[in-house]
Every structure is written in structure tokens, then in C-alpha cells.
């Protein structure tokens, strides 16, 4: 574990006051680093992956969401809160709907209409992370994920330093798309980095995530050279990278890195986020793609294992 050092009181108080925007703190997370973990989901991401399972993580500002399935017909407004609430083509209507649902969010008794994302201080978030400390003793701890934690560097650093001071194991899951120093400043406070690698081909990467992969791969090479423990996270996305050819190319790139790769987690594509796209009234870009069978996933994982990599399915 990194650190476990005392923070000067003044420094601790300063760090506790640093604010950031998050959309969830998920305790008892099982697939995002060793042991049992508390995930802190940061809001805001430089990528726009079509298959994203946390669409609410992409934009930084808080967003309004309407989970129509949770509407209990409370009768406060005379009507039910519907699916596709502002999916009308009419911009004017959309604006009105937004104002209307913002009003409802304050009074919705079922939590179906709600704002996603809130400003929290690092001290406040860490207090919640510490609540599960009794479950961290066997290697668990805190994972910063999102969204992209590195984009809120001050907040991420504050959380990591406060956690280190409490001897809580720290991890970050990152997309890798930012100037190197942004990640570098966090490394002294991280026990493990979960680094997403999606595709080796720059153009395909750009087409489906909105950005090229040059920066990401360059950062990965620098990271690997640091000999910090790194877990590579590869989403297996049908119609994007879930082919033997692509996976072999990706594996080759990973094998070419210096030996700091602890293991590779392949994360099979799933559509669990569909209801969230509907709640945010956004189209689901990866609509219509068939999922992967367990056999297909195992066979792709097997290709990577064949190259000498340690691979888990599902993290």
C-alpha cells in the first residue's frame, strides 16, 4: 500500500475542502480492483464511446433523468412521467419539458425524476468511503472511476491523498486520454491503475470513441515504464473490437510493453445501460448489436492467454 503516512492537519483540512462532481458512490463493488471496493464515479469524460454503459458520466454538469419505470403515478402533476420525455423533435417543447421535469425532480416521491451528478467535497466523499473500511482489510479499498477521474485532477488527488493517509488501498480506472502530467501527478498516491485500452487502430478508435488513440497509447507506454502495477481493461465490443484479429493486435501491443502489466480484464459488452439512455432521453448508439456469447468471450480471452497474458473475464 502506498503511503499510510500522516497528513499535517492543515493539509488534511485543505484537501477535505476540495470539490468535485460525481454521480455515484457505489459500495461493495466487486470488479474494479482487488478485494471489496467503494467506487467513486466521476462525472465528465473526454471520450464518447458508442457502447458506454454509464452515459450519465459523459457530461460534467448535473443532468436531469426521468426513470419512467419508477413512476408511481403519484398524481401530483395530473399526468405520469413518461418515457422519452423530451425526445420530441420540437426544440421549444424540449426546453419546456426540461423546465417542467426540473420542477418535478424536487418533489418526486419515488426518485424517478432526479438530477444526476452533484458537487461533493473530498472530505465528504472519503467519509463515505471509510464507512466500509472493515471490508477493505483483505486488499480492498477505493476505486476512482467514472467518467474520467483524471479530468478532475485536484479532486482526484485530494481523494487519493486522504485515502492514503487512512491506509486505504487506492485504484483508478482511466481512459488514458489527457496530457501525461495529469496522470503522473496522481501516481504517487495510487496502488494500482486500471487502464482502458480499446483499439489499436487510430481511425477506428476515433470513429467510435470520438478521439484518436495516440495519446492513450503514449500514456500507456509511459505508465508501463514506471513499473506501477497496471491492470489493462479491454471492453469487448461487437462491431468494434471483438474479433480474433483485433484482439490479437491488441494483445501484441500489450506484450510489447515492458513487464508492468499485472493482468488483463476483458469486459464483455452488455446492454444494461439502455434504461439510462432512455432516462437521459438520449439515443443509444450501440443499439441493435448482438451480444457476445460466453463461448465467444472465452475464446477471445483465450487468444490473449495464448500470448502469455494473465486474463480475467469481467474484472
Amino acid at each position, binding site marked *: 500500500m502506498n503511503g499510510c503516512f500522516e497528513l499535517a492537519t492543515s493539509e488534511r483540512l485543505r484537501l477535505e475542502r476540495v470539490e468535485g462532481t460525481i454521480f455515484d458512490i457505489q*459500495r*461493495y463493488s466487486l*470488479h474494479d480492483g482487488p478485494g471489496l471496493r467503494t467506487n467513486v464515479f466521476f462525472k465528465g469524460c473526454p471520450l464518447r464511446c458508442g457502447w458506454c454503459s454509464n452515459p450519465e458520466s459523459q457530461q460534467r454538469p448535473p443532468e436531469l433523468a426521468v426513470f419512467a419505470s419508477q413512476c408511481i403515478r403519484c398524481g401530483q402533476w395530473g399526468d405520469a412521467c413518461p418515457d422519452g420525455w423530451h425526445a420530441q423533435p420540437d426544440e421549444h417543447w424540449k426546453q419546456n419539458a426540461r423546465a417542467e421535469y426540473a420542477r418535478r425532480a424536487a418533489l418526486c*416521491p419515488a426518485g424517478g425524476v432526479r438530477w444526476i451528478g452533484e458537487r461533493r467535497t473530498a472530505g465528504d466523499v472519503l467519509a463515505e468511503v471509510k464507512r466500509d473500511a*472493515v471490508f477493505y482489510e483483505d486488499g480492498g479499498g477505493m476505486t476512482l472511476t467514472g467518467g474520467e477521474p483524471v479530468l478532475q485532477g485536484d479532486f482526484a488527488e485530494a481523494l487519493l491523498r486522504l485515502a492514503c493517509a487512512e491506509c486505504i488501498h487506492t485504484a483508478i*480506472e482511466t481512459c488514458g486520454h489527457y496530457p501525461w502530467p495529469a496522470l503522473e501527478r496522481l501516481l504517487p498516491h495510487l496502488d494500482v491503475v486500471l487502464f482502458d485500452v480499446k483499439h489499436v487502430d487510430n481511425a477506428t478508435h476515433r470513429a467510435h470513441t470520438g478521439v484518436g488513440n495516440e495519446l492513450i497509447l503514449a500514456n500507456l507506454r509511459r505508465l508501463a515504464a514506471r513499473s506501477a502495477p497496471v491492470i489493462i481493461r479491454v471492453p469487448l465490443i461487437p462491431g468494434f473490437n471483438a474479433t480474433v484479429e483485433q484482439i490479437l493486435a491488441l494483445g501484441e501491443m500489450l506484450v510489447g510493453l515492458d513487464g508492468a502489466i499485472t493482468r488483463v480484464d476483458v469486459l464483455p459488452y452488455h446492454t*444494461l445501460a439502455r434504461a*439510462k439512455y432512455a432516462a437521459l432521453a438520449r439515443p443509444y448508439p450501440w443499439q441493435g448489436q448482438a451480444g457476445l456469447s460466453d463461448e465467444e468471450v472465452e475464446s477471445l480471452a483465450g487468444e490473449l492467454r495464448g500470448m502469455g497474458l494473465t486474463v480475467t473475464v*469481467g474484472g
Partner: protein
Amino acid sequence: MNQWDELRANPTLAFPPESWSEVCPDARTAEIRRRLRETPRQIDVERARYTTRSYQCTEGQPMPIRRATMLLDLAGQMSITIHDDELIVGNRSLLPRMGVIAPEGAVEWIDRELDILPTRPQDRFQVAPEVVRELREEVFPYWRGRTLEEAVAGRVPAAVAAAVAGKAFSLNQTDHAQGHILPDVPTWLRLGIGGLRAQVAAARARFDEPNPPTPFPAREGGDELPSPHRACPELVEGGGAGGEVIFYDAALIALDAAATLIRRYADLAEQMAVDAVPPRRAELQEIAGVCRWLAENPARDFREALQATWFLFVLLQIESNASSFSPGRLDQYLLPYLATDLSSGALTLPAAQAWLEYLWLKFNEVVLLRSSASARYFAGFPIGFNVVLGGQLADGKDATNPLSYMCLRAQADLGLTQPNLSIRIHRDSPQDFLRAAAAVISRGSGMPQVFNDEVIIPGQIRRGIVPQDARNYAVVGCVELSNPGLALGWSDASMFNMVRILELTLFGGADPGTGVQIGLPTPRLDQVGSLAELEAAYDAQMAHFVALMVKGCDVVDAMHAEMLSSPFLSLVIQDCIERGMDVTAGGARYNFSGVQGVQVANVADSLAAIEQAVFEEHWLSAGELLAALQANFAGRELLRQRLINRVPKYGNDDDRVDRFARRWGDRYSKLVEPYRNRRGGPYQPGFYTVSAHVPMGADVGATPDGRRAGEPLADGGLSPSAGRDRRSATAVLRSVSKLNLELASNGTLLNMKFLPAFFTGMAALDKFVLLLRGFCRLKIPHVQFNVVSAETLRQAQVCPEDYRGLVVRVAGYSAYFTELDRELQNEIISRTAFAEA
């Protein structure tokens, strides 16, 4: 290296990971299982018939003698059978799973329900017309005016009866024997019937001398018990001077009864062997040999130990016909016999596993006939053969052994409801054992349940149990904690409805429906100026009803001692023989009465709602809330939703509400523990309900936590209300851990639900074990894990409100089952259903 040495070096060989997903009972086991499943449940008349005739012949004699004679008559006269597929034999009725009637307990409700037993909603039995006739003409008339039930009803003070009628608490075991006890299995195995007879004779001989001993001799080493577990003779009618000789005479008759029954099985097997064809003939001859030996002598090998264990429970059931005679730590008791046979090569590991499973099947042959009312509280014939594995030895070292793994494997192989399997865990429990237990849990039977030495042992010591006895605790029935062979815990004495009492408090002690004053006259919610004032009223009501509950329990306890002395049971509870005192009269070394507080979650959620809505944020007036409750939220759905969703709820690690759970859970414990029962031991609190949260909810009107009138209370005992726990499994555990559960030494129950995916694969099992380790550190006494079925998930689609806590865990993703879209929910359901098939 022989097989025993190998196993001792690596106990996991008894249940290796590669066998976790298999189901491999042997052919005989499968056949017995099929037969049990296909045997219809019927009403047995013989226990009632021979008990009636026996009692008619013994009128005027001391009760212990009458009870022992009854057992002897039953042992000699009841029909017995050996099924063609059996190697371990014996039952308390002719056919398995028969509903046995003990008329000395009650006949009224049986008479009333006789015609509906085949069709009633819960726990049905077939009844032959000639059985109905015999019961109504020859049995019931004798018993009217002579049953325990009538005696109790005649003696319970009016104020107690009114509180019971007002649904403040229940009095249990008013119509049958107490049960709920752990007999001394190791001593039974070690001494056998002959050895026990010698012990009784020696103890009795002391009274033939000119100066009989008084009091009974101090225990070896002279370590007097630190606590008040000794009955005061003046409290115990029929105890004390003069009673001992009667006790010993009754005990000797009971031992004759035991020998008689076992010998009859030997005779029957011999007889059947004459006409049997090989290989069955040899099997029957072996059965005859084993029974012939055990009729007088102690068990010598694994098979004899299993058979002797089963005979013990058959005899206890014949004598008492009660729930929850629990075997306890079978992995400890049977180990020496297993070791002998595996070392000598007399048994192979697979053969020993099969033998163990024959005993496991036997535990499924006894069901308890309950009244419709009782079956609502304890649905599905739970008979409480609780077996607990692992934990600590008397010296504090880990007790897990190869037999612990074999018992887990038996549960995996059979998947039956009995024995009610439990494990004990502590800080040094082996990882392999927890992982294997998790693999069995993942099969979805809710077993094994998990008990936590780190809080239970200190809790037992706090009650005056010496440390080495405390470390040897086991589980009675469902989740109750007791000491094998040492205690009469009467763990199911009463259930105390704290939610009902809160309801009465809100309405000034009156029932909101009828206006009838049931509790003390205290100010109503709309007459108090602060939450503190309301809580003061609640405190007064709780203290009032706890005192009444104790009075009621004392009456029932006294009647048990007077009418249902249990000479056979007293042979296998330590100190009864030395003291010459029946276990029901207080002969056991430790004596408790266990009373359950029901239900912490609803009390905490309701008080938090009142605090926030009425006294802090003022968005609801006290009068308005009372009116809404009285109207069962009719026309106030929005208010109900706000109370559910806008107020913190127990189970989310939120101190604003958890502090009420802590305050009132602990307060209940503190109110209960100063009372002493008439056997000389303390009352001790527990928090469990099994299925009683449903009927007990039916007794309570709408509550401020948003629960509608008559709806079930929170389940289990310490569980959050259904669907109110929305954060995480760890948050639930943290909420529960805020109570001082060392006080809840009678036992607690926490239910948690998981989707099957939490158990898929070795990595998932390891993460599950991490949760168990956290549970252990949090010092929560008990948890039971339910793997949700496809059916449950369909229910979650219909009533999402009750299942909001069901989480889906995928890497880097956050969601709840109820928030997924319909199509995906269906996909998860079909995957779950597929895994179940």
C-alpha cells in the same frame, strides 16, 4: 498413509472444488429421497391412542412416573417398520412425515381442524375416516379438562391474557412441549443406554443411605457457577427434597423404554431377514446386529454412531412431540468414530459420505403438526434439526475438520430442508472452509446459515456461561443459541411485537381501530411536544408489556414442569441426573427463557419518519399523520410515498435512522435481561421471527414508515424492511452492526438477498468470502443468504418498491435490478431460470 491421515492433512479432500457443482448422492440415497417425496403426509393416531391408554392406567401416580410409563408403553406398542431401502432405521411413526398428536398438550384445536387438515392453506395432512372416529370417540373425550393448553389458559392472569389478545406479544408452547434443546449427543454415544443406567443407579443409591445428600455434590474442581442458573427449590414445585427418587425411578423406566424400542427394531430386522433375498438379507442381519448392540451398549464405529444418534432423536420426539431437538455440532461428535473407521480401512471416504447422507435423510422424516395459527408463524414444517459446523473448540482453536466438509457435501448432494445446516465462523476460520460453504450457499437453499463466534461467545459468557462451555455453543431450531447437553434455553418462549406497541403508543395506549385501551394511558402523538416525549411514552409501554410477557411465560414454564416432565430428555441434559431434577423443573446446568423483539426495522423507520416529518421539517402535523394511519393512507398515497422515499431508512448505514434501531433494540434487551425465570435462569432477548413477520404484521395497522395496515413487518429479525435497503450489502451489515448484539444472546436473524451472479466462478466466491470476513469483524451474530430465484425476480417486476435493494454488479457500472429496462430484466430472469433448471 491411510485415508484418515490424508484427510486430516487436507480436509478439503472431503469436498473438493471440482465436486462443488456436482450432485452425487448414491443410488440408495436417491431412492430414499424419491420415496420420502412420494409419501403423502398423514395423521398418525398411535401416539394419541397409546398415550391415552397409558395415562388412564397411571392416574394418581407422580407425573414423572406417568410420563416415563407413557414412553415405555409407546416404545412397546407403537407400530414400527423398516423400509426396503434403509440402512439407518427408526422413526417415531409408522410412516415418514406423519402428523403426530400428543393429546396431553392440546386436543381442542386438533378437534376443530381435523376436518380441514387435508385442505387448509398451510401444512396439509390426510386423515383417514377411522382415525377421525377413534380420535373423537376414544381420545379427545378423555383429555378434555386435562391438557396443558387448558391448564395454561386457566392460570394466565387476566392482564396477560388481555395483552396477548391485544397482540402485544404471543405466549408460545402453550399447547405442546418446549423442545428447543440440544441433547448431550457425545455422552449418549459414549455411555449408551447401559452406561446411563449405571449413572442413574449410582445417583439414586445415594438416597438409599441413612443420610441422603443435600444439596447435590459440588461439581468437580468445585467451580461453582458464577451466575444465577440454579433454581431455588421453593420456586420449583415437585423439585427439591423427596422428588429425586421419583426422578430416578422415572429415568430408569425411560431407559427401559429406549432399550425396548431399539430391541424391537433388532427383532423386526431379524424377522424380515428370514424372508429377504440377498443382498438385502445380509443388510437386515447387520441392522439387527447394530440395533441389538445399541439397545444396551455404546456406539463403536461410525455406522453405530449414526444409528445411535438417530435413535436418540426418535426417542426425544416420541416423548415430547416438539419442535427443535437439535443435534448441534455433529462434525465434532461423530469425528472420533469416522477417524477409527477410515484409519482401519473399515470404511472408505465415499462409503462414509453415503452413511452420513442416510442420516441426513432421516432428519427429513419427522414433521410437526401445527395448528393453522402456528403454521402461519412457522410455515413449511420446520422441525429444527439444526446441525452446526466449524467454529472454535473449547480451547479457542479452530474446530473445522474433514467431517465439516463432508456435512457441507451432504447438503450439496441432497439439497433438502433438514438438517437445518449452519456454520460457525471466527477470525481464524480457514479460507477453504468458507469458500466451500459459499459454494453450497450459492445453490440457493439458504443453507448453510452463518453464525459468528466473535460476538456469540462473548454474549454467552456475559450470561454467566463459563468460557469453555460458551465456545461449545450450538444452534437450536432456526437461529437460537444454546449449549449442547447443558441448557434448557426455552428459546421460543414469546414474540414481543415492538411495532404493535409503538402503534398503541402513538394512539395513547389504545387500539386505533377499535379505540379499546390496551396499554397504559400515555399521551398521544398529537399531545406531545417533542419526539423525546413520545419516546418516553413508548418506553413506559414497552416496560409495561415486557413485565406482562414475563408473567405469562412464567405460567407456561410452571405448567410445563408440572405436566410435561421429560424423564428421557433429562437423561441427556447435564446436571439433571446429579441433582435428581427433571429438566423442565430446572435440572439443567443453565436455564434461560428467550423472548424475541419484533421488529427493529419498522420501529426505527417509523421513529425516523416522525422525527423528520413532524418535529424537524414540519411538513406533516401529528394529527394529520394519525388520521392518515387510521385511514390506512386511503387518499394519502403521496404522503405514504414521501414517508417511504424522503425519509432515511434502516439498512443504508445512515446514522439518522440507525440510531433509533440501536436505541430501541438495545432498550428492549435491557428491559428483558433483569428478569429471572422460575428455573432460576435469566430471560434473554433475541431478534428473529422466521416467518412470523407476516402474521405479526397482520396484527398491526398502518405505520409511519409507510407500511400499510396488515402488511408484513420487515423479515427475519434484523433485516431492513423489504426494498428499503438501497445502498449495498455492506451498508446493510453496517446498519445492523450498530445494535449491541452481544445482548441479543438468544439469537438473531438477518436475511440478505443476492442475484446468482454473485456466486458464479471461484473469483466471485472469494469476493463473497470477503463479505463474510467483514460480517465477522462487525460482530453480527447471524446472517442467512438467499440467492434470488427467477420467481423472485418476476415478483420484483410486479412490486419494484419491495426489491429496490437488488443490485447488479458489473465492472465499472452502477445499477439496480429494478432500474433496468424490462427486456433486460427478462433476460436476467431467463438466465436465472436456466441456472435453476
